[in-house]
């Protein structure tokens, strides 16, 4: 119980009349890399939006580090230590890559109006710190060469890296990664997954990973939850999931034997 980082119980979210998520439960232990899978439209992104506070649940509760964050705003959640990336990349496109990263440091280091205007020593120091930390993270992720480039001009794969770097810069306890390999080729996918496992081990993070690519998620997660049509279909180790008949039918399609007899 003491290792519980995030705990969601009986979450339910309706958009208009459509139920996007129903009776959703999840407990994340501190320091685990947890996978969330399911077909398109299963409600994975809704889970992310609820956890980060971008939207709020119709009913149910979310606890993070013991705080009730069910109705908490996204920026509050981020300052508590929840960071995320987006499935459809959301960079600050007209800003440089360096500025993109620097923005993530604003919460912890940024100074208010008066220190800024008066150019106080504290302000100058934090600006230097922000810059140093940003360069450090960019170097770590391998995007240092882009620092003065506008984010919109980066190749797709590198935009994903910037998102990851930006999320790391908020100094999170928990990172929610929404399909970090979407749109990447196998080579890039492999690289990104390596990066993720590396930061997972190196930064002692907890990661909740939404993925489409079975190969990826089976390879690195110890526990996996399967969503289908807003409901939890299964929860277990990769092996258990692979053998789960419901999962196979809903997500992977019918087993081969049956298919052949059909044809």
């Amino acid at each position, binding site marked *: 119980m003491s290792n519980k980082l995030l705990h969601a119980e009986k979450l339910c979210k309706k958009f208009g009349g459509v139920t996007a998520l129903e009776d959703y439960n999840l407990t994340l232990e501190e320091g685990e890399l947890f996978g969330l899978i399911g077909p398109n439209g299963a409600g994975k992104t809704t889970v992310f939006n609820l956890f980060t506070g*971008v939207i709020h649940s119709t009913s149910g509760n979310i606890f993070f580090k013991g705080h009730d964050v069910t109705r908490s705003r996204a920026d509050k959640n981020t300052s508590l230590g929840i960071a995320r990336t987006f499935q459809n990349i959301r960079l600050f496109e007209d800003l440089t890559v360096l500025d993109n990263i620097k923005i993530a440091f604003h919460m912890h280091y940024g100074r208010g109006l008066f220190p800024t205007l008066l150019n106080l020593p504290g302000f100058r120091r934090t600006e230097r710190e922000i810059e140093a930390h940003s360069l450090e993270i960019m170097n770590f992720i391998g995007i240092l060469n882009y620092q003065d480039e506008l984010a919109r001009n980066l190749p797709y794969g590198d935009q994903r890296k910037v998102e990851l770097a930006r999320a790391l810069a908020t100094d999170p306890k928990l990172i929610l990664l929404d399909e970090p390999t979407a749109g990447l080729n196998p080579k890039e996918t492999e690289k990104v997954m390596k990066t993720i496992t590396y930061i997972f081990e190196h930064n002692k993070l907890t990661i909740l990973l939404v993925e489409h690519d079975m190969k990826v998620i089976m390879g690195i997660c110890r526990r996996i939850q399967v969503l289908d049509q807003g409901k939890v279909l299964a929860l277990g180790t990769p092996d258990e999931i692979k053998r789960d008949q419901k999962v196979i039918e809903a997500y992977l399609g019918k087993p081969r034997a049956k298919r052949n007899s059909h044809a």
Partner: protein
Amino acid sequence: MSLYFAEQMVNGLILGSMYAIVAIGFTMIYGILRLINFAHGDIVMIGAFATLGLVIARLPFPIIILVVLLVGVFMGIVIERVAFRPIRGAPQVTGFIASLAISILLQNTGILIFTAQPRNFFFPDYLQRIVNIGQITVRVLDITIIVTSLVLMILMVILVRTTRIGMAMRATAENLNVARLMGIKIDRIIMLAFAIGSGLAAIAGMMWGGKYGQIDPLLGFVPGLKAFIAAVIGGVGSITGAMLGGYILGFAEILFVGLLPPSFSPYRDAFVFGLLIIILLILPTGLLGRKEEERA
């Protein structure tokens, strides 16, 4: 007092009718393009001046109505073609600024041609005649305004609800790209929305001039804004909502002036815009509007 009240209700009905038919155009254009078209109010002005010119030229009244309608339609099409089509797909705010620019352009072209001095507006005598309904006295013109608006609105509802082209308009308003996949020529639908909306606005201009007796090149802006407010009250994008919003606003404004002590009446516009801000905040989708969920 009750007679006074009844007369105020008639006034509310007239004002509401005018707001409603201007609001229809606002809401149609917004529904399809998500564009708040500030220049819409200035079509009201153009309609008013066109009417005045035609009345001076002593044309028969039915012909005047037809020509004014066509002037509005023509202006709507030209504005869409020249200014809005080239920036289609740009951020919403760009369209908004463009519409402001067109509004300024029309107003100042009006000033250039007609000068900023208000002009007296007049209609043939038979429209100015006064009739008694029960104890209430109204001008023939007032009845004409109310009836014409109702007829136009009923026609609009029939067009949108029952015809093929109306169905296409509704589909385009809901999802532009899927409408294209159905083979609907959306350029035509958009042009049609501008044409119909501007035609109605021009007719509203004719009524406006008749109601207030004076017109100037800047007359359209504030009623245009108020018609927008009416559209917001009804729920932007909903045509029946726009009509409803028009009447609600018309009555609210008249009651504000008519029922509160006279010292409040100068604050009428402040009241209307205050109402707008409050409605935007507490009921952003209006009375009949659909909710647009932003999903991540």
